[in-house]
């Protein structure tokens, strides 16, 4: 798809990033986000990138073939708890299920508290009806009952939206469909969501919360609609594509149907972009690490596809939304160091935020942060931070570290060394946890890292977990925007199965036929040409009654041999992850669900390939900084290079520091960095 003009935008909390690609070159720009009206920030950023490209926004937009957007609109609604006032209609006798939240309790200030409930107990109405595990009607739903319940909720409780979710509706949706129909007929303008329409799978709590979340954020896309209108007026001729939490793109129509799928749009865009980086550079297994000001976000990419989870929590509410599995830890550049009551140093989760920020920013911060420590240790260049646009207060950072160190009998530099070590240990712990929940071995993985101070830490993370390689993409600072410009349309549909292996291949084949029809219809709706489509299937398999499944790809059509191979593949993968001793001969193997993934390949940005230059032409270091590498040894001089001087093919032995405009890459001793054909920096670690 070379030659296409693609724009990707990522609306973040602080900045709106934009990437423009014409198929052979890319341009990037940043502009402050404007939460009161997202359009303003987006258009400002787009104007900047158009200028960089040598044209105007009005000149650029009509030529754009793809416009992708990562948006925090839904996330913001959840974070500020400003969604719709909801009513819930459910099976009588089970009205408390949603408020009780499966008994999950979270610790706040030392107390265990209930997670937030999207709907107040007094706005939950139970209807007399019951369906059993086989879908048989135990007690019929009376005609008019749902309408009456809705009238009560609307007239007496003033709800803005109603969710309907009955027990076992995924086995027999008759009652739920009828209830939804009655309510929609009575209140045609009311937003009504249904558990079985949105999430036809077992577990009533997750199904209900998924439908409730979609109702709760049901009006969050108004800002996006306004932006669409403005862009069209300015000449954009293609529809907007939105990055969803599952790591693909969706049309605005689909987003309006299932808005909650945008809840993790931003992080998903970054991981998706990493998966494109991985595919481009031939990496099959990657750990992505995004180190920002306040958090460390880690995710996995297997076979160039982001690892997802089918259930998890959205702002503390457990639900079943397919999401790129991102684990977030409160440790970033702005995290504060402190001394706990035992006299030990701790880092985070409290952060200095944007204001006052780290001490070295000189905006009134007094407590040392991770960034201050990196400056004191010599990793950051006080003269050339942000390309020299911001001078850093080295003395201030020194004083803050010395003050903290005094409390535990350490010098300022020792204290700074400790801050980095402890932050690193926490990041390693989070990364290990990510791998261990899946039984994966770090030695097979490449770390892909982005975000401001990521590459100063992640070489350490890679070394600690035993990953041999680190990759920093060329667009590391605006990677999420690139993801918005480059992700495929991704549709996902699943069918609950619950069959034991070996089973009749027809069961799976029939299910595939059903999913294929649904996905085809959806991709038609997304206007994806048949030639650009592909549909893959996978099954979730486990030993009977386990809670967690392994996902195994499934070929179609399904034959008896496929079924045999499936059971074998599952056992082999299980043994590989958890050890031969964990597998018991004769234990029943269950296929829990079949999932179809409909991919619509879109016009999209790609990384440009450049011819490699001779490594011998690697430029000399542009300078050197004294870096404290070991606590017990004096600082040693480390060569520093300007990224702008380095070309694909160049090779640098560690220790070295590679300074880019908005990030610095740490190449540790006994490792080597080179620039690959796609302008990514690859650090090879010798174990």
């Amino acid at each position, binding site marked *: 798809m070379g030659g296409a003009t693609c724009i990707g935008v990522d609306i973040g909390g602080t900045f709106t990033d934009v990437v423009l690609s014409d198929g052979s070159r890319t341009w990037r720009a940043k502009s402050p986000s404007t939460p009161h009206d997202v359009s303003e920030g987006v258009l400002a950023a787009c104007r900047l990138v158009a200028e960089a490209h040598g044209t105007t926004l009005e000149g650029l937009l009509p030529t754009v073939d793809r416009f992708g957007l990562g948006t925090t609109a839904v996330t913001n609604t959840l974070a500020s708890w400003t969604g719709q006032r909801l009513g819930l209609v459910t099976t*009588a*006798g089970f009205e*408390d299920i949603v408020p*009780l939240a499966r*008994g*999950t*309790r*979270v*610790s706040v200030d*030392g107390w*265990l*508290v*209930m997670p937030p409930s999207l709907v107040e*107990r*007094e706005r939950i109405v139970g209807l007399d009806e*019951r369906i*059993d*595990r086989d879908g048989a009607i135990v007690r019929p739903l009376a005609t008019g009952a749902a309408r009456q319940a809705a009238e009560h909720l609307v007239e007496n409780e003033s709800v803005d939206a109603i969710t309907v979710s009955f*027990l*076992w509706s995924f086995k027999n949706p008759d009652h739920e469909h009828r209830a939804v129909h009655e309510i929609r007929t009575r209140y045609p303008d009311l937003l009504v969501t249904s558990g079985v329409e949105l999430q036809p799978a*077992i*577990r*009533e*709590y*997750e199904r209900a919360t998924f439908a409730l979340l979609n109702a709760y954020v049901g009006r969050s896309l108004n800002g996006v609609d306004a932006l669409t209108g403005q862009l069209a007026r300015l000449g954009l001729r293609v529809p907007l594509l939105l990055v969803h939490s599952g790591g693909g793109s969706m049309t605005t129509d689909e987003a309006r149907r299932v808005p909650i799928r945008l809840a993790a749009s931003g992080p998903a865009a970054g991981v998706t972009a990493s998966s494109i980086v991985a595919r481009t550079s031939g990496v099959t297994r990657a750990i992505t690490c995004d180190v920002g000001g306040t958090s460390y976000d880690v995710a996995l990419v297997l076979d160039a596809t982001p690892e997802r989870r089918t259930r998890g929590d959205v702002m503390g509410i457990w639900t079943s939304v397919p999401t790129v599995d991102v684990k977030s830890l409160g440790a970033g550049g702005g995290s504060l160091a402190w001394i*706990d*009551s*035992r*006299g*030990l*140093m*701790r880092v985070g989760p409290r952060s200095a935020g944007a204001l006052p920020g780290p001490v070295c920013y000189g905006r009134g911060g007094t407590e040392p942060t991770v960034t201050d420590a990196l400056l004191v240790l010599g990793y950051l260049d006080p003269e050339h931070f942000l390309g020299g646009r911001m001078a850093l207060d080295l003395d201030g950072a020194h004083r803050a570290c010395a003050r903290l160190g005094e409390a*535990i*009998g*350490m010098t300022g530099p020792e204290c700074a060394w*400790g801050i980095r*070590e*402890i932050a690193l*240990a926490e990041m*390693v*712990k989070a990364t*290990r*946890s990510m791998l*261990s*929940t899946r*039984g994966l071995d770090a030695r097979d993985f490449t770390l892909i890292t982005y975000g401001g101070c990521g590459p100063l830490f992640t070489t350490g993370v890679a070394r600690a977990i035993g990953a041999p390689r680190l990759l920093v993409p060329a667009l590391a600072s605006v990677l999420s925007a690139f993801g918005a410009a480059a992700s495929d349309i991704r549709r996902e549909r699943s069918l609950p199965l*619950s069959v034991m292996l070996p089973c009749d291949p027809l069961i799976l084949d029939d299910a595939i036929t059903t999913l294929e029809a649904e996905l085809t219809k959806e991709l038609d709706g997304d206007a994806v040409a048949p030639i650009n489509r592909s549909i893959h299937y996978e099954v979730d398999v486990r030993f*009977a*009654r*386990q*809670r*967690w499944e392994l996902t195994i790809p499934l070929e179609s059509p399904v034959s008896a041999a496929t079924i045999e191979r499936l059971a074998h593949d599952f056992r082999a993968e299980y043994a590989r992850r*958890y*050890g031969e*001793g*964990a597998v*018991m001969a*004769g*234990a029943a193997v269950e296929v829990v669900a079949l999932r179809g993934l409909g991919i619509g390949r879109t016009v999209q940005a790609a990384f440009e390939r450049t011819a490699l230059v001779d490594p011998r032409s690697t430029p000399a270091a542009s300078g050197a900084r004294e870096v404290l590498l070991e*606590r017990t040894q004096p600082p040693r001089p480390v060569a520093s290079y300007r990224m702008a001087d380095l070309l694909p093919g160049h090779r640098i032995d560690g220790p070295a520091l590679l300074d880019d405009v908005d990030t610095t890459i740490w190449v540790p001793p006994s490792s080597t960095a080179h620039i690959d054909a796609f302008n990514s920096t690859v650090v090879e670690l010798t174990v």
Partner: protein
Amino acid sequence: MTLGLRTDPITLEVLRHRLEAIGEEGANTIERTAISPVVTESKDYSCTILDRDGGLLVGAGKIDYHFYAASSAVHATIATHGESIGPGDVFLANDPHNGGGLHAQDVMVQRPVFVDGERVAWIVNSAHLMDMGGMVLGSWAPAATECFQEALRFPPVRLANRGVEASDVYAIFRNNVRLSALVEMDLRGLVAGCHVANEKIAALVAEIGNERFVEAVEDMCDLTERELRRRIEALEDGVYRAVSWTEWDDEFFVVPCTLTVEGDHLHFDYEGAAPQAQHFFNSKPYIIASGLVGEICKLLAQDLPFNRGAFRPVDLHCPRGTIVNSEPPAPVAAAHMDVAFNAAEVGMRALMMAVAATEGSPAAQYLSGPTGGSALATHTWSGQGLSGMPDGWAMMDGCLAGASAGNDRDGTDLGSWMVAANGSLEMIDVEVAESWYPILVEFKRARPGAFGAGTFRAGAGCNMAYSLHGTSQLFGVMLGMRERLPLVGMAGGAPGAVTEFVMHDPANGAGRIGGHASDVVLQPGQLFEFRCASGGGYGDPLDRDPARVAADVKRGRVTFDDARAVYGVAVDASFTVDRSTTDTLRAELLSQRLQRAEPPVSALASDAIASADGQPSQPLYPGVVQRGRVAFSARTGAPLAVSPAHFTDGCPVLEDRRSFDSGSAVVTRSYLDPGSGHVLAVDVVPDGEPRAFTTAPRRWTDAPR
């Protein structure tokens, strides 16, 4: 500040993170490989890392109760196998009398970690297995009178010898447990978790060196000990006592605890506990310590790493041959439940009183009623499962009692615990339960009722009912506690709800089922219901914000009548509070209380009261202050007692007696503020028993005359 440590503070913190990461990896492996819903849904499992001698270093998983039990298991394994313990060995034990865990079902899978031929650590993985053999499915047999009847009992034995699986032991295991295919899978999940953690620990130790590792983990534990001692030292020295009773039908088994706070040390004395009984609740000191010290740290030290250092400032006295320190052949299938939870609760109630008597204690922000551990309503069922094969399960939703109220908040529903860093058991989805078990759930809700009333009220327990669906009958065993004696509240809050099991029969109506019945049969047409107990309230219910009462009425938690009778709040049909009627009602209720009350135990000498003039005011109990040698109501200034008497000696007492058809009775005593009629404290005891709580800080008992 010098810490006097051999390891620098950075290395220590880094090491802690690394050990925690390894513990988490082990725990993750268990959850992802286990089958039993008790493990995967209710999260009843743990991975513990211990030092080379079995001292607790780091625990992972949701059940911190296991951590010290793991330590005890390793001590027994070392004592049994000594020098023969080698690399690649894996040990199993499950007998509380001989090297096991909390009870026979909580097997302890233990693996020593060797580096360069030297033992440097241990991994212990534990989970609740669905069955370990014995008289009944699930191995909780209320009818058992000896441990021999209860379950297959493993002393510390090898599951693997130098890396070679001991297939004989697996064969014995398989031959003796029900649902052996499922249970073996869970057991193998524990072994897998051990292997994962073993490799990582070995690599970590190899990296930093055996000697430095040993030093560093000692330093880590020393720091926890030192800081916990500092916090204990801040508590008011003195003696604090609380008494509870474990029930078995109409029998009450006393569990008394006298806490002495002295300097930086806590001594919990269970002298006077009932002799060991022929019921499965007999316990062991290590189990009681495991529960109690975990609770202490939730109150005083949530922020400290929980390791063996936390156990050093605390000691327990559990007299031999009693229910808190039983010996074979005492049955012990619930060694961590009825009595052990009671023992931890009375210990914590005593400690709460010490906190309440300490001026400016940081822990005072967490003052709250007792935890709900001793109020479980678990039960097990067996019969023909949905596949047509024999099946059985424990209904873990019966563990979801309501939490006691805190001093500034209502208790959480289905919570049991209020003050903790991690949630505990979670409930099972109705659809998942119905897909696995041959039942149809009629309802599942937060139990309604005005139980545990208070300025802040208790949370509700789980209330659930179900009938047969997909089988012809089921056989049930009840494991109910607190059918008669509810959990108390604090600071004048009312006691909570008691546990109830009910069978609704189309012919005979509703009938109560005894809390330890082991012959329950669920037949077609019948509906089985359980109502979980709850903790107590905090503060007088008449002080509750009327708007909160109205909200509870609107949500169906409290009736209009209870709002008036219990809270003195008039709520109209639109759920609005009628302020003036409420004021009148509350005044009437207060004066009625004083009219109905028995007079105080002793009159106060006026010269003693006068001696308090000009003396500084110090806390004695929530709502009660000490000035000089006199205790006063903080609200009305009414004098209550003169040192060293119990502060309630000057309180008018309201007594309510509740008799049971079966013969026993319990008495609720409310100690009133003589100046207003507000409730200062509430006590619940078996009929004929004296006051069951005492707060006697030395500052009070030794107040100069």
